[in-house]
């Protein structure tokens, strides 16, 4: 067995186990050290991903594990977002009596997302989704004395249980159709299988992954989690599982014979972005607003999935968009964390004067989410539009453009409150760690736009082609 191929994943696993052990023995006051341990683990994993960057796409571990450039890039995003979230956490968790295990749960959740991104086998995909979900539920409800957090955790868990069950059904049906779970075998035999059963199976799988993506109809947890979960957790959960799930969905859709499933994804995409935007319009709570906006952004990401195989640049567009989205969302939640999780829109009055740095980063993040050039979000949307137009899905591009317009409204509303009003009182902030994380997010948004060529180069390599 080529164990070296799994270095990043093994690093995460070993790190998480060591953190659990450490949390059991370290006294309360020193639990914060484990954040450092988690960061070291993530750095090792990141380094391993860079070192093993695949020259050519390949399969490993009897073909269940995909090593290709998209997977590596997705791992970088997932691990990077995890690192940023962990970096924000010690300040946030300082008052929590025990929080060592928190970092282990973070690493497990990230491991689940990584597995999703690299899965070349539907059983393994299921494993990744379940691991990521199971580790995320307790993270959301980590502040167990805080009723809204418990409610969010409960909602997350219930929706997740249903969606994961459906995913399981879908995977089992695929297995029933073909007699194997390996993607290569699926790709080869799905074309001859029963259309009706295949449709149901694909529908179930898409629904199951829609939960991880926070896409319609399994999106309802996202605003609650964004509002009530610990802010660093919200940052991580709005990014890491989505990246993994989007890539997993792209791989699965690419397997399907003909146009099967594509129209469903296109439809889900259009509905998701519209629904998320319309719901975000009326929010007076910045964290809920970010949650809904993150739902709508999932809709955009699905645009690329819907044209996979029909437009050359689809995978590349998907990855660039995900990177852009991850950076912007992390930066936005980093600001929220830095401001001690303040959530009411009215509390953001005059922030541009009271905390100029936080206001600037939040505005830059939001402008990037809208897609104002030359921020990285613009390139993401540009490539998405290009791919959908190239695949003759002009209607989807127009729906997305109209949605972008709607989204401008609520992002600008936050910007206007911060810039055009006077502060009502002093603004409390968290500390050095969160300030650094916030700054890193802001710089990342601008820098990645300037280094777009590098990013395109990394994502430009095609996804592992499967024999059909």
């Amino acid at each position, binding site marked *: 067995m080529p164990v070296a191929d799994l270095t990043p994943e093994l690093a995460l696993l070993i790190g998480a186990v060591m953190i659990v052990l450490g949390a059991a023995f370290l006294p309360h006051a020193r639990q914060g050290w484990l954040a450092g341990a988690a960061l070291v683990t993530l750095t090792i994993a990141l380094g391993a991903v860079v070192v093993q960057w695949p020259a050519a796409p390949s399969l490993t571990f009897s073909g269940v594990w995909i090593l290709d450039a998209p997977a590596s890039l997705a791992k970088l995003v997932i691990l990077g977002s995890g690192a940023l979230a962990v970096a924000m956490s010690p300040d946030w968790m300082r008052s929590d009596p025990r929080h060592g295990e928190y970092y282990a749960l973070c690493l497990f959740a990230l491991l689940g997302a990584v597995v999703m991104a690299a899965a070349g086998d539907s059983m393994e995909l299921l494993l990744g989704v379940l691991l990521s979900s199971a580790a995320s539920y307790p993270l959301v409800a980590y502040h167990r004395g805080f009723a809204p957090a418990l409610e969010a955790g409960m909602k997350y868990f219930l929706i997740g249980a249903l969606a994961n069950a459906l995913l399981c059904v879908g995977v089992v049906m695929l297995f029933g159709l073909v007699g194997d779970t390996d993607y290569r075998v699926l790709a080869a035999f799905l074309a001859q299988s029963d259309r009706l059963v295949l449709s149901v199976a694909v529908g179930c799988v898409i629904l199951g992954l829609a939960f991880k993506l926070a896409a319609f109809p399994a999106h309802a947890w996202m605003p609650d989690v964004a509002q009530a979960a610990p802010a660093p957790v919200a940052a991580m959960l709005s990014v890491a599982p989505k990246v993994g799930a989007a890539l997993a969905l792209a791989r699965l859709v690419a397997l399907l014979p003909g146009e099967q499933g594509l129209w469903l994804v296109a439809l889900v995409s259009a509905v998701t972005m519209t629904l998320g935007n319309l719901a975000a319009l009326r929010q007076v709570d910045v964290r809920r607003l970010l949650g809904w906006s993150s739902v709508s952004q999932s809709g955009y990401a699905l645009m690329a999935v819907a044209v996979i195989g029909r437009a050359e640049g689809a995978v590349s567009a998907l990855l660039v968009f995900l990177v852009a989205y991850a950076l912007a969302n992390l930066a936005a939640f980093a600001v929220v964390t830095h401001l001690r999780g303040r959530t009411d829109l009215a509390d953001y009055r005059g922030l541009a004067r009271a905390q100029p740095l936080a206001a600037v980063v939040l505005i830059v993040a939001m402008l990037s989410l809208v897609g104002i*050039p030359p921020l990285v979000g613009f390139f993401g949307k540009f490539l998405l*539009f290009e791919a959908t137009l190239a695949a003759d899905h002009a209607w989807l591009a127009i729906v997305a453009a109209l949605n972008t317009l709607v989204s*401008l409204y609520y992002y*600008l509303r936050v910007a206007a409150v911060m*810039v*055009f009003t006077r502060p009502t009182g002093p603004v409390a902030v968290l500390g050095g760690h969160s300030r650094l994380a916030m700054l890193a997010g802001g710089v990342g948004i601008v820098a990645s736009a300037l280094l777009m*060529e590098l990013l*395109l180069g990394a994502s430009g390599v095609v996804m592992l082609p499967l024999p059909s």
Partner: protein
Amino acid sequence: MLTVALFAPLLGALPLALNSRWSAAQARWIAVVASGASLLALALAWLTFDPAGPLFQHVDEVQWVPSLGMAYRVGVDGIALAVATMSAVLFVAAVVYPFDTRGEARQYYAWLLFLHGVSLGVFLALDLLMFYVCFDLTLVGMYFLIGRWGHGDPQLAAFKFFLYTFAGSLALLLGIIGLYLALETPTFDMRAIIEQQPLAGRGTYASLVFLAMMVGLAVKTPLVPVHTWLPQAHVDAPGPASAILAGVLLKMGTYGMIRLPLAMLGETFSRFALPVAVLALVAILYGALVALGQTNLKRRIAYTSINHMGYTVLGIAVAASLIGGHDEARRLALTGATVEMVAHGLITGSLFLISGSLWQRSGDYAMARYGGLARRAPQLTALTVLAAFASLGMPGLAGFVAEFQVFTGTFAVYPWLAVLGVLGIVITAALFLDLLWRLFFGRLPEHLAHFPDLNRIEIGVLGVLALGVVAIGVAPHFLLEVVEASASLLAGGR
């Protein structure tokens, strides 16, 4: 040179945005220096521009995203040079012009400089994507300028402005992508696209791309019926920002029409030339008539902008019509459209600066609350009269040169449109005379008894703009030579 012109203001904006120690006066000085440097660079570019040379000159190129065919590319033809230099003049004027920054001089000048840089970016870009990037960034700059330093209901005005024009730019973006996908080798290099004419003879697809682009640019211009964002944005914006909005930002729409549809989709545009020309005629008449009905000074000037941009669009549409044997007329129309852009920038720029001065003195735009200022403020009166006369097309001033060329060109191609369009000039004359009458003659209301005349800086700025207006009117040669060279290359006739 062009790179200097583009980045000097941006580099000036950076320290202003970051450093919080400077006083208002220091901030102002930095802004003047940065803005002035940009103007100087453009002046140099003008002096070394060779009218007999190739279409695009002073080209600079740095790769940015080669795999998409995107790069930092700047360069000018005569049309871009004329419009960019006029913009730089107007920006220097707006920076120098006295304005109450409400204790936030640093931020105000930083935004103004930022806007200066990205606006020039639109006119100087030779890369389609860079054009779009700068096109969108101007919205961000203007949004904060209106929202923070405007009056009335500035946040709503700023928001409306952003939303409408961003809708336009999304349509433009879809059009640009449509064009990009039709290219054989993907690139955003404008020179390559102009050369390839990728959509010539491509039927419906070409029409859709053209319409998407045209809608986007028409919103920015603004052309009736997508002009509705303009009046409120103008009325609630601070004086210098209004001057920039009318003088520079509106030009991006018409300049874009010359650069994108006319140059890159010439064949498609020719099929739509007549409808666009008719729309321009509607804008001319509608803008003039609605302006006549306004009682608010700024609103009236704002609507005359719709009317004047109508002349420009008319000229561009005529230039696009490929009706055989009219090369000379089409060249004339295109030159006229460009001169109109420059003239309108200078004239309306000064009119809005003047209304800014009136606001600072009395806090009112209602023309009914003014009167008899001619005796109280003779210098203000003289400069306003000059600007108004230039705007209504008095011979010997800039507006006349432009309108004459546009209408002569139009007359050769669409005679009846020209005849109807001239009506617009009559109405404009009526409304400006009425405006002058209401502000400066008649009885002086009591609350204006101590109305101060313009101060020296204001006179200086308005004087320089007026000088430009007169110079173009009396000796247009220096401008025409540069513009005509490029117009001939684009519209034929050479």
